[in-house]
């Protein structure tokens, strides 16, 4: 399906499906880094478990007592210290390739590795700045969440029934998720604009994205929300299936379902990115007035803005 055909939701799905290599590479990197991060812990556990009959308490069921004992053995405490580092590496890696991913979805072609990373590198610093601005933008969200949390606690403490406090806590969680989605959507669209319009200045891209979001909030948020909702339902539903239907001793099956959930969550995040790009290509470009910057490098300007500017030939 062409990205300019159909709804952005289906066009986005088609883009993710059509460029699966991105998904699988992301998955492989995510898995490899996670495995590397927990390697020392797993190795330490292996030294304790592989020749011990007591390990059966973790195979034929999962004894929290056995796990607690394993985690707190004074001679070999199982502390996960590598995961934080590998998580940061993954964060930087995704930051680096996001520009390339958006470029692929914009052009709907397979880029060479060099072009892919070149596009990512070109956007890297502007996305770093956007990431910092995103953290700043999340501060008010955090303050609102904290304020509502305190309010909910107050109601919880003061009310004879716990219901008002609990409902307020639930509403706070829902509102916080909603605000986070809106902020994320805003920055997603800024990244789309930064790539499509080659807008180097993060604040200008954010300004344009803000205006775009304000003018088209319904359709954009509906696009983002639907995919987020599907992600949540499938992810937590999948965990429920894992816990309820996969026997404790079926370790290979556990691995498969856990990784399916990971692949799915990666795919849905890419789906959001691709859907946003498709939406922009279909609706947004004409409404954004961003001057075309002068750049020595290749310009992948939107046809809607650059008129007859030819697209570079696919690598």
């Amino acid at each position, binding site marked *: 399906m062409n990205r300019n055909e159909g709804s952005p939701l289906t066009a986005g799905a088609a883009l993710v499906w059509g460029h699966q290599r991105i998904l699988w590479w992301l998955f492989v990197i*995510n*898995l490899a*880094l*996670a*495995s590397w991060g*927990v390697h020392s*812990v*797993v190795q330490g*556990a292996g030294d*304790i*478990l*592989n*020749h*011990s*009959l*007591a*390990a059966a308490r*973790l*195979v034929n*069921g*999962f*004894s*929290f*007592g*056995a*796990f*607690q*004992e394993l985690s*707190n*053995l004074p*001679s070999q405490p199982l502390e*996960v210290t590598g*995961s934080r580092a590998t*998580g*940061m590496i*993954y*964060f930087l890696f*995704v*930051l680096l390739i*996001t520009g390339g991913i958006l470029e692929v979805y914009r052009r709907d072609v397979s880029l060479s590795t060099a072009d892919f990373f070149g596009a990512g590198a070109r956007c890297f610093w502007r996305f770093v700045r956007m*990431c910092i601005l995103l*953290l700043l933008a999340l501060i008010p969200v955090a303050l609102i969440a904290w304020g509502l949390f305190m309010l909910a606690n107050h109601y*919880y403490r*003061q*009310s*004879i*029934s*716990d*219901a008002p*406090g*609990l409902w307020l806590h639930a509403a706070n969680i829902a509102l916080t998720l909603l605000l986070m989605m809106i902020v994320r959507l805003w920055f997603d669209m800024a990244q789309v604009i930064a790539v499509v319009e080659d807008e180097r200045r993060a604040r200008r891209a954010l300004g344009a994205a803000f205006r775009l979001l304000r003018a088209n909030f319904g359709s954009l948020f509906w696009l983002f929300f639907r995919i987020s909702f599907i992600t949540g339902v499938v992810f937590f539903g999948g965990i429920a299936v894992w*816990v*309820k239907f996969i026997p*404790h001793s079926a*370790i290979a099956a556990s*691995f498969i379902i*856990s*990784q399916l*959930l*990971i692949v799915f969550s990666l795919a849905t995040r890419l789906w959001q990115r691709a859907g946003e790009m498709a939406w922009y290509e279909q609706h947004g470009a004409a409404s954004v007035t961003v001057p075309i910057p002068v750049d020595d490098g290749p310009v992948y300007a939107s046809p809607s803005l650059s008129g007859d500017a030819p697209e570079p030939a696919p690598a």
Partner: protein
Amino acid sequence: MHKWISSVIAVVLLGVLVHAALAQAPARSPDNEEKKPVQNPVVTVPTGPPPLSTRVVAYYIDAQLNPATHTIEGRETLVWKNLTGQPQQDFPFHMYMNAFQPTSTWISEARLSNPDFEWKPTNYGSIEITSINAGALGDLKPSMHFIQPDDNNHDDHSVMQIHLPVAVPPNDQVEFHIQFSDRLPEVVARTGYLRDFYMIGQWFPKVGVWWKGEWNCHQFHHDTEFFADFGTFHVRVTVPKDYVVGAGGDLVDETDNPNGTKSLHFFSADTHDFSWTASPSFRVVTDTWQGSAGPVKIRMLMSPDHASSDDRYLQALKGTLALFDKWYGPYPYDRITVVDPPHGGFQAGGMEYPTLITADTDRLIPRSTLLPEVVVDHEFGHQYWYGMVATNEFEEAWLDEGINSYTEVKTMDAMYGPNVSFVNSGFGTLSESEAQRMGYLGRPDYDPLTRFAWKFIDFPSYGAITYGKTATTLLTLEKLVGEDTMRRAVQTWFMRYRFTHPTGTDFLKTIEEVSGKDLQWYFDQSVSGTAILDYAVEDVRSDPVKWYEAKPPHDAGTMYHSYVVIHRIGDFVFPTDLEVKFENGEVVREQWDGHDRWIRYTYDKPAKILSAEIDPEHQVLLDRNFYNNSYVVKSDTRATNKIAVIYTFVSEVISQAYAWLT
């Protein structure tokens, strides 16, 4: 007629008499400033069934709750019988409510264990004696002074002492008349108020115990509970008319007062404390359980929103009642009240008073987590271990909390299954014994069981040792004497020492007597000592006897020289069983006294060793590390792979959460 029924009738008749006498006192109302001490209406107990306990004290208390100020105005008459065998002139009293003040020992110890201990002005509590006299002996207020027998903290006012002008001769008695005012804290340490809920415990001046030839009246410490003499309690509480009241006594009568309040008169005998609770929001659930000593009225005072816990509490309580009745002895009281604190009131939860316990729940606790059941089971167990076998909780906390944790394991395992008696979810399981053992292993070697409760290095150590280690020690003891013998020993301990103040020595001697074994070596290490028990299979090997001859590796005729080395890593010496399995299906059992630091077993057999395992029945729960108790020659990576799957998945999810910010 059942013996217990006649006892109940006698108690009710006594209560009616007391009430009639109390009714003669002027009616008290908030605006009635006249405060006269309650006259002791009944000094001699009428004839009836013999008391179950040696009744040293008789309290007559008239208390009025003022919800607007969270205060109690009380008048107390205490009749104290001198059964000490010597004249007594000085009397210490517990003034527990004064512990909730910034300069108290209780607070300083709380901050020692946790420097971030949260103190709010609303947590302030106090008890003030406005007058005290002993009838003809005159006003005692001038002689009243605070003492600090434990730590010399002169700012601690949790123990008060008075001096009589003349001593009370042996076998005589003295009547104290006390007027006091309580200022209740916002609920802390299982007492106080929360919104419209009141849990009133440790609220009246309570005389110390003459024990081991001296007064035993410790200050209120952060990690300690209580100790008091048995007797009778005649308590009348006055509360607003819409309040539902529960108490550790039989309700004798209830009267409405013209000023919008009501008074409820309770009577309790052969108990050593009296607590009560009040709230207009309580929902009352009642039931009856038939025990070997007669029917027991169950009354549950449920907080709003906790309806889903009704059945959970009730089933746990009735199951625990039945098992205690069957295993350890009859429950002699005709009542048990379960108080369900409201949300946010966990500080009031999980507490025991005679015939009244507080539970703990939350509407978000899933059915797979048996916390409400565990709390009810545990607190009911205290009716036996504290309520009736009234050990000194200040000095030997392991005798009530520890033995109770052990019986909690036994009863919860029996009711809910041995491997799932704490958590039974799809994610995983946790048994009661595992929970106790994990508690012990959290801080295993700083303090012995026998340490005074406030002298532990900190609160985590107190909890780990007093609850977890005691339970684990007694569970391990089952390996030495057998489960049935342990049950008989605990039953003997109850039947012999109920309504008395026994000691740890009494308990240990009871076990030795019932089992017919000298167990001092075990108690020296587990009860009095801090040694760690840890045996490990150090090495397992099988070599062909004729290793120098080239033969196929699995030739059936090949003889192997095999050996197993066991290493005693810890200092705790304990007899150890070893089970060795060979490839040809042969199983060999060994027993080692465990005294040396290591031992090597050697075998010449036509098969290699498959595995070697210490304690194959998994009875030595004191063992610090279960994983080194066995060695399987052939590596099995399934558990490791499972850990890898879970850790990797979590790590991937965390990485994706980071990446969401890009």
